[in-house]
């Protein structure tokens, strides 16, 4: 019977050694569900915020444990999620509230779903409110990491590739891996020192006169890696850039490389347009910070037909996901920042029905949990960002997608065709 018989909180660690919360929920039937909280940079930017967050999430779950969770009956996920939302409504801090809801909802959902490989995927796919398509998301793989997940002068957060020409999930993962390793070889040939950043991308320094020449050099290096792996840029593989612009903000403008001069928001718009003319770019993520949202509609219009603009950090400065479409073409979906499973499904569905491209995403300090793979597949989202081809906190997500792809009904429908 789907009645909660026990709730257990514990400490586990993320990929960057940070303690995080693991919640285990057991049902009277004996089924057990576990959820692990991935962390984003703002969750641990100072050691104090890290331990505070951790403590607050634990305390809030403790607070509802005896009163709400123990003995609660889970008839449907939607109904249970509404209960959780209701009982956590008083939590003031939006981020803490979302994390508490996410953990409780996911752990209970997993317990109901059972422990088989396809269990969570099937369960999520059965929750009403989502589209009925059965399509796998196209993975977007990080090649170069910069900014706060690296220790180089390159402040742009990620240069990524999307294997747009791949016709199956297994092929897309293979293209990602081959290009990733080809980049290692190219950097070795260039005699360029590199390390692996928090999100699995390679961190290295690029030198040039200004931001555009440095970015071009980095993108050229990625193109070289794509060609060396015998793929054709633009046809087989497209590029994507996550500026994470709020982290490059300086004196009312942006500094994309620690050695470059500061650029005004208008310059960034011009930079994106110029890059989209010279490179096969699928999307620009967070090209501007929340303080410059007024530049977004113009950027979107100028890029129309060539590249998309995608909002991640920007979302908090924009209105509801449905309204983000006036400013951006796509949104990043991080369920742990949204709340319950039902809320995450609702968020993604609203975005999709408003014509926004929804891209599911991992977090910078993640764990071996593969929820995001099951979620993006069950929701038939067009894309999932899961980082570089290094570190099992990234690869575990790709592996779970590979398992899901074996399913007959998934195999029958091809990978989503996301030509822009």
């Amino acid at each position, binding site marked *: 019977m789907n009645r909660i018989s026990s709730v*257990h909180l514990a400490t586990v*660690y993320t990929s960057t050694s940070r303690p995080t919360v693991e919640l285990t929920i057991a049902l009277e039937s004996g089924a057990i569900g576990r959820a692990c909280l991935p962390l984003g940079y703002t969750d641990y930017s100072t050691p104090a915020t890290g331990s505070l967050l951790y403590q607050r999430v634990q305390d809030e779950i403790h607070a509802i444990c005896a009163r709400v969770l123990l003995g609660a009956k889970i008839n449907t996920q939607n109904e249970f999620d509404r209960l959780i939302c209701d009982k956590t409504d008083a939590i003031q801090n939006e981020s803490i509230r979302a994390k508490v809801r996410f953990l409780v909802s996911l752990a209970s959902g997993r317990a109901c779903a059972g422990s088989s*490989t396809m269990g969570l995927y099937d369960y999520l796919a059965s929750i009403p409110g989502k589209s009925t398509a059965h399509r796998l998301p196209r993975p977007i793989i990080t090649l170069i990491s910069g900014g706060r997940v690296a220790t180089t002068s390159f402040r742009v957060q990620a240069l990524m590739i999307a294997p747009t020409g791949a016709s199956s999930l297994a092929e897309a993962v293979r293209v990602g*891996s*081959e290009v990733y390793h080809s980049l290692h070889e190219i950097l070795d040939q260039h005699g360029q*020192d590199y390390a692996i950043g928090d999100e699995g991308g390679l961190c290295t320094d690029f030198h040039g006169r200004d931001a555009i020449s440095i970015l071009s050099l980095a993108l050229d290096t990625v193109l070289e890696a794509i060609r060396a792996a015998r793929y054709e840029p633009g046809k087989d593989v497209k590029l994507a850039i996550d500026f994470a612009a709020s982290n490059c903000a300086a004196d009312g403008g942006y500094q994309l490389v620690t050695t470059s001069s500061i650029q005004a928001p208008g310059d960034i718009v011009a930079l994106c347009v110029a890059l989209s003319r010279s490179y096969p770019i699928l999307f620009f993520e967070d090209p501007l910070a929340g303080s410059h949202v007024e530049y977004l509609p113009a950027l979107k219009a100028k890029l129309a037909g060539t590249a998309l603009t995608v909002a991640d950090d920007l979302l908090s400065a924009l209105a509801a996901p449905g309204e983000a479409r006036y400013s951006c073409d796509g949104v990043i979906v991080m369920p742990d920042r949204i709340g319950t499973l039902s809320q995450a499904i609702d968020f993604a569905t609203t975005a999709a029905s408003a014509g926004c491209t929804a891209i599911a995403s991992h977090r910078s300090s993640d*764990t071996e949990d593969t929820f995001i793979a099951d979620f993006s597949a069950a929701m038939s989202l067009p894309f999932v960002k899961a980082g570089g081809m290094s570190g099992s906190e990234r*690869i*575990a997500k790709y*592996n779970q997608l590979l398992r899901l792809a074996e399913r007959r009904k998934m195999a029958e429908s091809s990978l989503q065709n996301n030509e822009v």
Partner: protein
Amino acid sequence: MNAFSIHEVFGREILDSRGHPTVEAEVSLAGGAVGRASVPSGASTGSREAIELRDKDSERYGGRGVLEAVAHINDDIQRVLRGHDARDHKALDRAMMDLDGSKDNSKSRLGANAVLAVSLAGAHASAAQLRLSLYEYLRKYIYARPDHTDAYVLPLPMLNFINGGAHAHNALDFQEVLLLPRGARTFPEALEWASRVYLSFLSRLRDQHGEPSTNFASYGVGDEGGFSIRVPQGMGPNGTVEFILSILTEVVTQAGYSVGRDGSFAIALDAAASEFFDDGSYLLGGRQSGKPERWSSAKLVAFYEELVDNYEIVSIEDGMAEGDEHGWKILTERLGQRIQLVGDDLFATNPEILREGIRSGIANAVLVKVNQIGTLTEAIDVVQIAQQNEYRAIISHRSGETEDTTISDIAVAVNAGQIKTGCLSRADRVAKYNRLLRISRELGDRATFRGDVMVPAAPALVP
């Protein structure tokens, strides 16, 4: 046919922590239970190791694909194992070894990666069918502990914090410098300390201006999650090691802990000496200067002794090269009563090689890597041979890992007392520690944790 009879064996190609293909297998039983496991891959593979099978197809994954190994699982292995009672693990492994039939038991025909994936997945399936945790199943059905104790020991983590040798681009000749949270009273406490020290390292990567700091090179260079530290030019082999140890001590202190006899942390070295062994002697200090010094085995042993005298070093792995039996004898003679001497390349997780080593009295501990031998029963045999001869057995990961956590359960099942599974970063390493945290919770009072696990080797030093 019973509930434990193997119903299906299935293999697939997935990726390891470095983004290279590896094998995953699922074994399902008539009773409905399903076990899943994936296998690691080593960066350096010794000449006497079981051989993994890689596709020669350079069009896929640069020739590293494992479709052929996967096909062996889905054809031959499945055919032979179907109907087999999964609880008789020895017979299951034996059936695969017979099917493989390659000479020297190298498993090169089916691929050690195919055989091991099925071997491990079979154990997971039996455990699930019995509703036992994997470590309990291994203890009850595969590992026959001489004293039949049901007490469990949680392993002391040997955390690879500093990379050198083949794992990094710096002047350090030794491959790893490890921290052991020896003073911790419980396993969770040991990890809490490790996390604080790791974060203390992270805080040193940038200086006060937010620029990359000069000594602390980029991190994550190593596949195993440790740090790489830049060493000033011209320090020589001794100076380099001392410089690294002083920085390590400084970071531990900054985190609020200490290194030392009564301190929170002890140090272990993995020299990986085969890597700098050349024509009967050892080449040290040449990684940056290009002009190495040529040391005799005796000189290297004297250096280790000096380090052991001056620092809290309690364990040295592969202190000598695998072919240098004379050197190993000197090393064991001089330090075997004082510290743990681990054979990795030396024994290659091979029962025969280990028996030889025990007879010659070299080293006093063995590193056990399941994929070096290729089946679960053989790996556990190696542990038992070691333990029966008062050698310690340390369960170890490989550089190419997956999110699979089987080795955590093995370490607990055999009361290894120590586990080597990288630094507390990258989920390929952290997943193993997270699994041990869950086991620790599950066992509660039934498990003990001993930080001073390797000290009994040195009775002479106890005051």
